[in-house]
């Protein structure tokens, strides 16, 4: 087995030298922030039209993270590309020849890509929050309010974890087409439908993205059966399962 720092360095070189992958991270940041600011502006201008109930549970922190709905798709795309490109290009054969201990290759790649996704996720979440609050005018909150800093960190974590979930699952699916075809519709639509239709609500709320997004909220609307940290833990359990599945497949299948 090669020493881990070398393999980490090699994976870092791999990630930073493919432009398409880096662009997904840039889009995640831009889409999330811009959309969050737009929605914040919109709500600031229409605040008085909201029902009394909506005004009572208004959550300026959560509103400034509205862009994550779309921005997370770019994070998922990042997770998919980092892994699936190894297979679609055949690079995996070079990678495994250089690092034949499969768990080590997987660990190094996930560590480097997740660290990068988390860093971009944190920048995204802080930028969304700060610019979003500016846009909310009189309805804004700030980092010193209870629960707000936790929600901002929670959102950054969410963005990193959703990318890691995608990486784990892509190691099972391998093909970029299949990975995008399964994951993008799921996180863009299916999960939301499951979590909002009364018949499936109880289960839908425990899906990874639904559970994780609990951590973005400061105000408890009573809609969730668990708190923010539990939400993140549920998401973490999903991520662990996806990574474990990826590792089992990588260990046993031919490259």
């Amino acid at each position, binding site marked *: *087995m*090669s*020493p881990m720092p*070398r*393999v980490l*360095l*090699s*994976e870092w*070189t*791999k990630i930073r*030298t*493919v*432009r*398409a992958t880096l662009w997904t991270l840039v889009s995640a940041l831009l889409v999330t922030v811009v959309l969050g600011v737009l929605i914040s502006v919109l709500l600031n201008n229409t605040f008085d039209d909201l029902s009394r109930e909506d005004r009572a549970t208004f959550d300026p922190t959560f509103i400034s993270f509205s862009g994550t709905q779309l921005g997370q798709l770019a994070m998922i795309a990042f997770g998919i590309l980092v892994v699936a*490109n*190894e297979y679609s*290009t*055949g*690079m*995996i*054969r*070079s990678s*495994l*020849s*250089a*690092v*034949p*201990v499969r768990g080590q290759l997987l660990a190094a790649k996930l560590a480097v890509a997740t660290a990068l996704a988390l860093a971009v996720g944190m920048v995204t979440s802080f930028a969304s929050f700060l610019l979003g609050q500016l846009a909310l005018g009189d309805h804004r909150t700030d980092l010193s309010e209870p629960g707000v800093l936790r929600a901002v960190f929670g959102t950054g974590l969410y963005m990193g974890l959703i990318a890691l979930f995608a990486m784990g699952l892509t190691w099972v699916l391998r093909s970029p087409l299949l990975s995008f075809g399964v994951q993008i519709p799921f996180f863009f639509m299916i999960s939301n439908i499951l979590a909002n239709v009364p018949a499936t609500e109880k289960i839908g709320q425990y899906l990874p993205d639904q559970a994780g997004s609990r951590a973005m909220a400061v105000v408890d609307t009573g809609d969730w059966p668990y708190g923010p940290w539990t939400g993140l833990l549920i998401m973490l359990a999903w991520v662990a399962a996806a990574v474990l599945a990826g590792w089992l497949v990588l260990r*046993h299948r*031919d*490259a």
Partner: protein
Amino acid sequence: MIELSGVTKRYGLKTAVRELTCVIRPGLVTGFLGPNGAGKSTTMRMILGLDRPTAGRALVEGRPYALLRDPLTVVGALLEARSVHPGRTAYHHLLCLAQSNGIPRRRVGEVLDLVGLGAVGARRPKGFSLGMGQRLGIASALLGDPRILIFDEPVNGLDPEGIHWVRNLIRRLASEGRTVFVSSHLMSEMALTADHLIVIGQGQLLADTSMAGFIEENARSYTRVRSPDREKLLDALSHAGLDAAPSGAPGAEGAWELEGDRTAVVGELAAERRLVLHELGHHRASLEEAFMRLTSQSVEYQAHVGAEEG
């Protein structure tokens, strides 16, 4: 040194490699010869631990590949299938491989120059020709200055100048004492580069011999004779104590073959007996023919076994 013992690989019902046992030694070019689909690439992938053998095992310097420390410094491989991200520059492709095995960065520039890609290191392989892609693959094989080299069909896609370069490179690597294992589906290619020959067909070992031994055994010399008067010819030959067998070569129907060069004896015999000959000549079977003969036997054997099993 590479050791294969009883290596078998099945993909579903298809047996790609069947109980292959052989040793590939240092200081020689070992040619790995077999028609398309014989199982050469599969065997090479198993040596590198990319595919897991269904049975048996492949050892490199006495260990499974996965247990080698910094494997690129022990084994360098050029695989048949593309193994490069087309969007990462040649330089960075080699750099990330080098870093994972503790190979110094300057070695990347060295191997790029060595394979003649020095000027295009900053370019992305998506714009590379087949030959340039092949050179990049060879560069990654040489990156760790390994003692063992595995080349899967290395001359594929190369122009004549490139082919010449690869042949010389392979010869040089072996002369430096390295283990060189090169596959090809062309006997002519092997005849030019290999010292030792391992032939497989349908995943099975057909021959494991020195190149010289293979030539001696297979490039058989024989005399071919043909006469319109078949009875008289055979009568004459048997009287002279000469064994003849009907020729199996295409286009030689009705001719008879005798081992070795017996043209003088047969010619004199014919004159003596006033026998009309339409053909008399001395031939040497080409290595290509020998290879075809060897592998067609394995095809027939397979078909036969298959019929019995069915």
